[in-house]
């Protein structure tokens, strides 16, 4: 079908973009470029969501990631030794182990995805507005408890993060 061919094409296009930007994140010496590359990678993933007709999620992803990556860029500049990447220092360690770990994980996941029998394809997909409606019902129905606890967890972690980040008032300084 034409729809599925185009779908496949865009999936592959955005997917490869996401992967390529992901690699750039770790290969570039400049910290700001690294953050931006991550931003583009997450955006490509959001586009993939939209291709797969999960519009709400896609938009959510793009919005969230944009904000996050900006903050991250700020933190990069604050905390990096060499934000601009002008120095030529090697900033990675146990490379072989990491490469091997990545390789093994890739192969395992590929094997699972291509060799497993996933069953028959879905018949039809609800359209966007219907999806939102169903999502709301789901949210306020079955998943109410999850979200409530999620909300509490977020609150707690926010408080925790704030406390960790606040400088202590004691004169001796502390951790």
């Amino acid at each position, binding site marked *: 079908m034409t729809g599925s061919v185009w779908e*496949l094409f865009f999936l592959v296009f955005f997917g490869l973009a996401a992967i390529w930007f*992901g690699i750039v*994140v770790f290969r570039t010496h400049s910290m700001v470029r690294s953050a931006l590359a991550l931003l583009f990678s997450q955006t490509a993933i959001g586009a*993939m969501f939209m291709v*797969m007709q*999960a519009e709400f999620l896609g938009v959510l992803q793009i919005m969230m990631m944009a904000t996050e990556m900006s903050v991250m860029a700020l933190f990069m500049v604050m905390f990096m030794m060499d934000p601009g990447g002008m120095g030529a220092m090697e900033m990675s360690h146990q490379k072989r182990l990491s490469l091997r770990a990545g390789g093994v994980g*890739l192969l395992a996941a590929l094997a699972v995805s291509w060799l497993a029998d996933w069953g028959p*394809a879905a018949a039809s997909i609800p359209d966007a507005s219907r999806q939102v409606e169903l*999502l709301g019902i789901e949210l306020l129905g079955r998943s109410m408890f999850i979200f409530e606890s999620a909300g509490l967890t977020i609150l707690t972690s*926010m408080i925790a993060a704030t406390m960790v980040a606040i400088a202590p008032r004691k004169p001796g300084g502390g951790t």
Partner: protein
Amino acid sequence: MIVELSVTLSIGAGLFAVGLYGALSQTNLVMILMGVELILAAALVNLVAFWRYLHPDAMSGQMFVLIVMTVMAVEMAVGFGIAIARFRSRGSVEMEEARELKG
């Protein structure tokens, strides 16, 4: 045999591999967090693919995605809080110098 599903899952696998490589090989805490971001994003991709091609009627798939996104955000926040605290006490966030927990 759903080709799109397999392809998307492969994309997810690639993202996961890159993220894993980054998380294990970077010296800076912020870079490690970025690697973890990529891993979580790969999980999200896989989740959405499974929802779309296998169970589009069950909204719990999208629910899961929302939860994961929340977790991502929270984790980022706490991670950066720690980074600030570390930077304040030592002056850098290089993980090479963080040997206090050495046994």
